[in-house]
């Protein structure tokens, strides 16, 4: 079974031979486990994947389980080569997806479970990642309709698989949130170490219905929850400024860097070895131009003689204001505000007989989309832009995606540590002479309603 899963907790499914473990629970001495997102569809279709230092490893994936806490991720839409992804979904015996809307990966799933959003969680949660600021959010509404949180789903699955949910998930969401809050530390103002951020009283603990010890910190839990944010006060000359490599610069002999030579390395065999271990490429130890799979060279039939080929334009897949990646793509008012236009320079458009607002067919080596074109002088000639994150809407008969999902056009070329090749795509454009589709904001929303 292939689990696209990022959750605390151990999954004990003995006998499922995928050769692939959740990296969060990977065995310490074998650090190269997991599968590059880029390779998932190939792995399903071809029965093998790149297992870094272990080379190509066979796999026999029959099921995909996409249940994420807070229903993140729209993998089928956001991994390169959607056509390949759809083919992979159809090859699998069973696909289950947990979601808050019928996004692309749920559209192609066998079973879709309604999951909660972060704002439906009684326990609330934290937004981490900023070294100077911690945010917390509280429940805005009880779960809507039949939605459940992912932890509930997994505990229920345990009981049906003869597993003890308390053994696998010993901590409730409330306990997990409490542990995060209690464990939050903030640097002391003299920079000498860390101290607890929150003061948590015995009353706080009993109100949350969890186990824990009271503690003294910088601000009270109640104040933190009411404000929703704690930000470390900064001032010029405070003790929090960190200058990387300061000791090395002051005395490079006494304070060597943790590199093979102890110095900054412009030629770095160590880095080369780290990247090469992933198994996707041979990275030179010194910076060199490596032609991308579909870069400027890919637009030429013959680079040396300068003859352009079948896909002469370079596609840049920009972040698009209608959405956050693919989130909120379904909101009609946002579709009206941002129509998912394909952006071209007037010079390239006029060469193809295209006018501002025409519908155009955009083809790559991997797929086809149809969108209206906007002519913009600030797009460099030879380059075209399309916003990433539109939910694929594939006409099967025509083999065309009318939503303009950029990953219909992008091919999968894992390199480095398995990076996505999103801005490595060559396309050709022509006027669309078929049926003009409805404006995006008039498309029916994907709301499953039982027929009366």
């Amino acid at each position, binding site marked *: 079974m292939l689990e696209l899963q990022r959750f605390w907790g151990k999954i004990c499914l003995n006998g499922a031979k995928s050769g692939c473990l959740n990296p969060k629970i990977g065995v310490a001495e074998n650090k190269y486990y997991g599968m590059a997102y880029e390779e998932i569809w190939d792995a399903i279709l071809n029965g093998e994947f790149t297992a870094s230092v272990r080379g190509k490893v066979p796999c026999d994936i029959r099921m995909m389980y996409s249940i994420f806490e807070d229903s993140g991720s729209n993998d089928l839409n956001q991994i390169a080569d959607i056509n390949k992804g759809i083919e992979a979904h159809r090859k699998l015996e069973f696909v289950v997806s947990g979601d808050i809307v019928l996004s692309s990966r749920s559209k192609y799933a066998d079973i879709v479970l309604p999951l909660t959003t972060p704002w439906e969680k009684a326990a609330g949660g934290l937004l981490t990642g900023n070294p100077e600021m911690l945010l917390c959010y509280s429940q805005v509404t009880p779960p809507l309709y039949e939605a459940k949180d992912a932890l509930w789903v997994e505990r229920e699955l345990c009981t049906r698989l003869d597993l003890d949910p308390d053994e696998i998930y010993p901590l409730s969401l409330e306990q997990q949130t409490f542990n995060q809050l209690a464990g939050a530390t903030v640097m002391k103002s003299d920079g000498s170490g860390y101290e607890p951020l929150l003061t948590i009283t015995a009353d706080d603990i009993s109100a949350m219905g969890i186990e824990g010890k009271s503690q003294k910190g910088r601000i009270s839990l109640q104040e933190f929850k009411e404000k929703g944010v704690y930000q470390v006060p900064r001032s010029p000359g405070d003790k929090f400024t960190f200058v990387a490599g300061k000791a090395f610069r002051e005395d490079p002999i006494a304070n060597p860097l943790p590199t093979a030579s102890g110095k900054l390395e412009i030629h770095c065999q160590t880095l080369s070895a780290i990247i090469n271990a992933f198994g996707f490429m041979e990275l030179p130890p010194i910076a060199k131009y490596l032609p991308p799979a579909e870069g400027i060279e890919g637009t030429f039939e013959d680079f040396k003689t300068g003859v352009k080929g079948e896909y002469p334009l370079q596609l840049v897949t920009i972040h698009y204001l209608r959405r956050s990646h693919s989130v909120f793509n379904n909101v009609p*008012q946002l*579709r009206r*505000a941002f*129509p998912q236009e394909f952006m071209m320079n007037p010079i390239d458009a006029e060469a193809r007989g295209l006018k*501002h*607002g025409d519908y155009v067919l955009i083809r790559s080596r991997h797929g086809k989309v149809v969108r209206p074109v*906007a002519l*913009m*002088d*600030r797009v460099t000639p030879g380059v075209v832009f399309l916003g990433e994150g539109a939910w694929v809407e594939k006409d099967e008969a025509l083999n065309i995606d009318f939503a303009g999902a950029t990953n219909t056009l992008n091919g999968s070329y894992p390199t480095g540590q398995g990076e996505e090749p999103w801005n490595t795509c060559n396309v050709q454009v022509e006027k669309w002479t078929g049926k003009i589709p409805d404006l995006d904001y008039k498309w029916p929303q994907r709301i499953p309603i039982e027929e009366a």
Partner: protein
Amino acid sequence: MAKQKAFYFDASACTGCKACQVACQDKNDLPPEILWRRVFQYGGGSWLKQGETLVPNNLFTYSLSTACQHCESPVCRDVCPTAAITKRADGIVLIDAEKCIGCRYCQWACPYGAPQFDEETKVMTKCNFCYDLLDQGLNPACVDACVMRCLDFGDLDELRQKYGDLAAIEPLPTDKITLPALVITPHKHAQLSGHGTGQIQNLPEEV
């Protein structure tokens, strides 16, 4: 004496994010078809051949957010056959849905595209300056939504004292026809109305 309410728009800071447009739709429960506030992208320039390459030449783009200007001389009110449009003492121009017959003359006449026909109710609608919020001492929804703090409102004379009296840049029409209650701080590349060298870069169905 009541003063003319006016919008202020800082084109030098607008990113074209349309939070104002969508906040207005949200506050007024508008369907996607109806835009009481609209955001335009205006731009132009060209590319010149230099040997084997093309180089950019005076490329420019800026965004412009506009709703109803609550004009001092509102042509919408002047053409309305049923007197459904009135101008209050504070300058706010309102459409009375009960009197409107949906003839769309105001839509033809308005140089700004402010009146929007409602396909469901078959009458005209437009920005009402969030007068219900103003009555509570609150700001219009668009003003509060703007992430760059480009939008403000107040008394037209005070806004002019503070920001000057520019009331028209491309792609808006000249301010001499309807006397919009509007003050604009121009973008550094802003072009005067009627003297533009660029184009509206939005798709036709977008605005």
